[in-house]
């Protein structure tokens, strides 16, 4: 194994650990809705929510970085240039995440001054990490880019997938710089902030996961490079074609000109179409291989990615993307429902697929199967779908009672929060959240033990 693949294992392990923190923080956030007195005076709801969302971003990012460090040396046929720097930065990255989490939990918030911005919280949703840590993320990404570009230069070899990856690294890093400005005009601030949030998620991350899934399909199903790269180009073109200007659906109500209603609505309404193409591709791959593979969990998580992306991004997104509906739905649990489903389908399932693939290679397993991964797969997916359904019901109640009938007044907000449908939706969400957490435990147990108990059983049967 290459050193970068050892590093990949560390990144993927850290990703799974942070997935657990995200799940725990999510459960706590869900419980606050049922019992608002929970941890009153000790830990505020907003901090739990920050932990939930920021760990989501970080575990997926670590999953992507880990997957790329795993595949790249095989792609280039050599160790990555400057891997020593990446190894050091992994520990710096983990330590920074831990310090930021402790500051969030213990200090929580500071005054509205430069000190708080640098050391406690930047105050920008989803990128709350204080400025020193945000600079650290940029350094990690720059070293990551150096590993990729430096190795490509050293080998003088660029494949279609690595070319797409290298081009994607430019906006991936540049857009993150958008996390830094502290613009006092709210509309202007939101305008640029969405460049980071939307274009990372619906453009650069889509391309990253596209590259990762291209390598996964090649290794898992033995699909030829030419086919995979052809489809990667098409996918990237379609996703970027609809996703970049789909940014406009975040500009509907932040004080931008009216033309964003048309641009945002039009391009984001087209977003389900490339996702439909992915579903058909998944069916083709599954069918031509007669659902046979040496790594069933990796294969099923890959399938879950295609379907989850279509349902979460396509179906759930289309419900709320046209401005006339979005006027009432934005910022309600309806959008939270879409966010959960889309992130799960588009990214989490893909990262889990890669992790099972890596486990198979590391442990030298001929086949990966068994019962436990099926339990975790079922519990995680049923738990997620249950949460999404419950959030949708709560969101309907909010949009109906608070927005459409109540006209978004403070009184209407309270009426929405107290509405029976809203409250029951929140309780149901917590119940399915617990199922999801059980699925996470089963997943971790399976990843730790898969392939390790089989030799013992085989040895025992040989003794008999």
């Amino acid at each position, binding site marked *: 194994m290459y050193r970068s693949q050892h590093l990949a294992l560390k990144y993927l392990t850290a990703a799974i650990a942070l997935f657990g923190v995200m799940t725990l923080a999510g459960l706590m956030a869900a419980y606050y809705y049922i019992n608002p007195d929970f941890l009153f005076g000790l830990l505020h709801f907003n901090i739990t929510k920050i932990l939930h969302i920021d760990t989501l971003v970080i575990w997926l990012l670590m999953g992507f970085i880990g997957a790329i460090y795993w595949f790249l040396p095989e792609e280039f046929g050599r160790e990555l240039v400057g891997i020593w720097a990446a190894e050091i930065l992994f520990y710096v990255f983990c330590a920074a995440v831990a310090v930021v989490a402790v500051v969030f939990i213990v200090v929580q918030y500071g005054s509205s001054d430069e000190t708080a911005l640098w050391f406690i919280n930047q105050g920008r949703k989803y990128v709350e990490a204080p400025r020193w840590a945000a600079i650290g993320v940029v350094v990690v990404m720059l070293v990551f880019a150096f590993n990729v570009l430096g190795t490509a230069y050293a080998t003088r070899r660029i494949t279609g997938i690595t070319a797409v990856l290298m081009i994607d690294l430019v906006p991936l890093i540049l857009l993150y710089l958008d996390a830094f400005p502290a613009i006092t005009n709210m509309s202007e601030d939101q305008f640029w902030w969405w460049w980071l949030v939307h274009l990372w998620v619906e453009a650069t991350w889509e391309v990253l996961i596209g590259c990762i899934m291209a390598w996964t399909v090649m290794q898992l199903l033995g699909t*030829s490079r*030419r*086919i995979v790269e*052809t*489809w990667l180009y098409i996918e990237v073109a379609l996703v970027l074609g609809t996703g970049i200007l789909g940014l406009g659906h975040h500009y509907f109500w932040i004080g931008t000109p009216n033309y964003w209603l*048309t641009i945002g*609505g*039009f391009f984001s*309404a*087209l977003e*389900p*179409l490339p996702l*439909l*193409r992915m*579903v*058909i*591709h998944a*069916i*083709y791959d599954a*069918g*031509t291989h007669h659902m046979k593979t040496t790594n069933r969990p990796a294969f099923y998580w890959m399938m879950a990615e295609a379907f989850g992306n*279509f*349902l979460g991004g*396509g*179906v*759930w997104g*289309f*419900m*709320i993307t*046209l401005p*006339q*509906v979005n*006027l*009432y*739905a934005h910022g309600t649990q*309806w959008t939270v429902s879409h966010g959960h489903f889309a992130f799960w389908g588009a990214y989490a399932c893909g990262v889990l697929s890669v992790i099972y693939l890596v486990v198979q290679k590391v442990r030298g397993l001929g086949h990966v199967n068994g019962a436990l991964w099926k339990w975790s797969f079922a519990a995680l997916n049923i738990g997620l779908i249950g949460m999404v359904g419950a959030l949708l019901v709560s969101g*309907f109640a909010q*949009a*109906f*009672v608070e*927005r*459409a*009938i109540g006209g978004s007044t403070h009184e209407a907000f309270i009426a929405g929060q107290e509405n029976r449908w809203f409250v029951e939706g929140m309780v149901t969400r917590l119940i399915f959240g617990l199922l999801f957490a059980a699925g996470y435990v089963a997943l971790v147990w399976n990843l730790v033990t898969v392939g390790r108990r089989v030799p013992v059983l085989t040895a025992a049967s040989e003794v008999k």
Partner: protein
Amino acid sequence: MSGLSLLETGLLLGLYVALGGSYGLVYAIAHLKGASILHGMSFILYALHGLVAIAIIVGTPLQVGWKGLVVVSSAAFLAIPPITWRFLRVTHETEAQG
């Protein structure tokens, strides 16, 4: 938009994409299995998708432009599965021969 028409419109839009996707899914399975009954079922799903599109056009307060987009999207939903399937088959067959 009234509260009720908001929920109706949101649900119809979701159902519209879900049925378009179901058509694509069953279309692909039908071609994989060579089963004509599934092929017929895929077009029934597309017909249902079309009915939902009509319901959106006739029964929701969306502006004309968005209703036009729904019509155009329905044409794309119809075309994407066969085009994708054909392209997938051709690229795989070409690769196998090469």
